[in-house]
């Protein structure tokens, strides 16, 4: 059998970032709901970044002459009990609420995935210890545990973030561990080990990398949940403190005026609803995109 050494033509293989992004865009366009979710996320991020430019008033400017005004041309969402502009406060509030999610989800996701992949790949005592620890955290209702942790750490936005992170980590650990158990039985991990790859190398290059799609989906879905959680902590006074604008805290204060000044609670509430829903829509769409077999479920 003669070696067939054809002319050495190095052709660009389809692939590369540009190609992948193009394909992603093509798939996204087929799902209007995912696209809507993406639009909401982009909008919220834009608002976060541009709040100072967009806000018509200083969010913390007390103006007792204009307290509890209904929505109007100059105060689009009305004013609160000390005359601050609610529209401006909601714009600025996005920075608090969304930054919680932007901190919690990556930190919990990365730590949880590494722990979980390690746990599943190594097995033995380390696996037992890590999994029992996650069981302990998960056996307590997450809202109650987050509240307890946040209260113990002292009420502040950063402590609320830490509390939510600790409670979210086990979900990623379990997910990544399940993937690791699956992947470590696959041929390419066995082959890698047969070729002398160390455990850490297998975790880093084979397990983590191939476990990524479900973790990304979980993370996008978590963004909405985390925003809700942050708002809930703000609502009961364990999140951002006055006078910082934060959606959950605004809803909580607005509750006192809900019968006569409906707009006070309604607009921050809507902001939470729309942001959380946008993230969930996008997360759902991403799951269908990354795992076509599950489509339509």
């Amino acid at each position, binding site marked *: 059998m003669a*070696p067939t050494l054809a002319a050495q033509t190095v052709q660009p293989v389809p692939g590369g970032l540009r190609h992948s992004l193009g394909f992603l865009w093509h798939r996204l366009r087929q799902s209007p709901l995912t696209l809507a979710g993406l639009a909401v996320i982009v909008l919220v991020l834009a608002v976060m970044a541009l709040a100072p430019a967009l806000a018509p008033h200083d969010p913390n400017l007390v103006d007792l002459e204009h307290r509890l005004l209904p929505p109007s041309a100059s105060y689009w969402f009305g004013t609160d009990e000390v005359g601050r502009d609610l529209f401006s406060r909601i714009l600025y509030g996005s920075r608090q609420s969304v930054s919680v999610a932007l901190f919690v989800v990556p930190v919990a996701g990365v730590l949880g995935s590494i722990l979980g992949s390690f746990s599943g790949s190594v097995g033995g005592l380390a696996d037992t210890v890590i999994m029992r620890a996650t069981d302990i955290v998960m056996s307590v209702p997450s809202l109650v545990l987050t509240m307890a942790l946040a209260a113990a750490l002292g009420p502040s936005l950063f402590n609320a973030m830490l509390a939510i992170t600790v409670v979210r980590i086990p979900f990623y650990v379990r997910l990544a561990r399940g993937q690791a158990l699956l992947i470590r039985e696959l041929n*390419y991990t066995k*082959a890698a080990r*047969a*070729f002398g790859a160390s455990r850490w190398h297998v975790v880093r*290059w084979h397990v983590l990398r191939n476990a990524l799609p479900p973790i990304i989906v979980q993370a996008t879905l978590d963004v909405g949940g985390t925003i809700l959680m942050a708002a809930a902590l703000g609502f009961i006074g364990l999140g951002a403190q006055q006078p910082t604008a934060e959606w959950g805290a605004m809803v909580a204060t607005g509750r006192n005026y809900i019968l006569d000044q409906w707009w006070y609670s309604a607009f921050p509430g809507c902001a939470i609803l729309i942001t959380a829903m946008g993230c969930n829509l996008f997360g759902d769409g991403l799951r269908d995109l990354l795992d076509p077999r599950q489509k339509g479920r």
Partner: protein
Amino acid sequence: MSSVLSIEDLRLEFPIYQGAVQALNGVTLRVEPREIVGVVGESGSGKSVTAMAVMRLLVPGSYRVTGSATLLGQDVLAATEPAMLALRGSQVAMIFQEPMTALNPTRRVGQQMVEVLRRHRPLTRSGAQAEAVALLRDMHVADPERIQHSYPFELSGGMRQRVMLALAFSCQPRLLIADEPTTALDVTVQRQVLLLMRDKAREKGAAVLLITHDMAVVSQFCDRVYVMYAGAVVEDGPTAEVLAAPRHPYTRGLLDALPDRVASRGDLAAIPGSVPDLTRLPEGCAFAGRCPLVHGACASRPPSLPVGPGGQRHAACWAVRDGEAS
């Protein structure tokens, strides 16, 4: 020169709820330098478990093992993990069945080759890339530069197995364990890959332990053969002799079942019955329930393979031994 691989009475079981799966029940096997040794047997006969145990790739803590296995002078059952890491990939290489799944689907072939090369040899990134291209060309792969930039799913099965072979031979191993390397390939590609493997092994002085269930492959490529049944070696000897005059009734049954042994319109011969449950092995010979030569001694004691120098023929069967004695 001492044996590359020497396994003595290896017994291995996987504990399960109430009992254990007795995967290996006394495997004795030897591979000499530069030899191509075949291991045949049906699914579940312990071929792959033997290979995985020798490489110590089974999940730690999931099994119990007795006996001995010596790989290049290293006792693999007692060796530390760093010692095994030093063996795997450089001194001993292993390739797997289904080359479709033996490469990480999310990374380019070149990256994966460079990694293995740099792990075992002092090469720079660009040096390793050049070496990978040279290795692929050595495996008769056309256009290796393009293959380097491809993802595994863009390659055919035969191409992927060539990539695996290139990696396997990249560090001049003394032993290559090939676990059904061609099962998922079609017959022509299978032949090309096996020929390539044999030639490269001879060229580089590596011994090969070829695990397969294909008697035709054994007859064409192996110097010696071990026949396994229910986790034990039932017969061994030089390939030509074993195939020409099988002694163990199981080997005979396997050979009689080959399509080219019957007239064109005749029915294929089959071995009656099925493989015993590995959680409840019979007290005596595991093959007794299906054996045409079964008699008194078979039910009470398991026949062990007589231990002797390599190159000789052995069969673990009471009937054969009685026949020789009389």
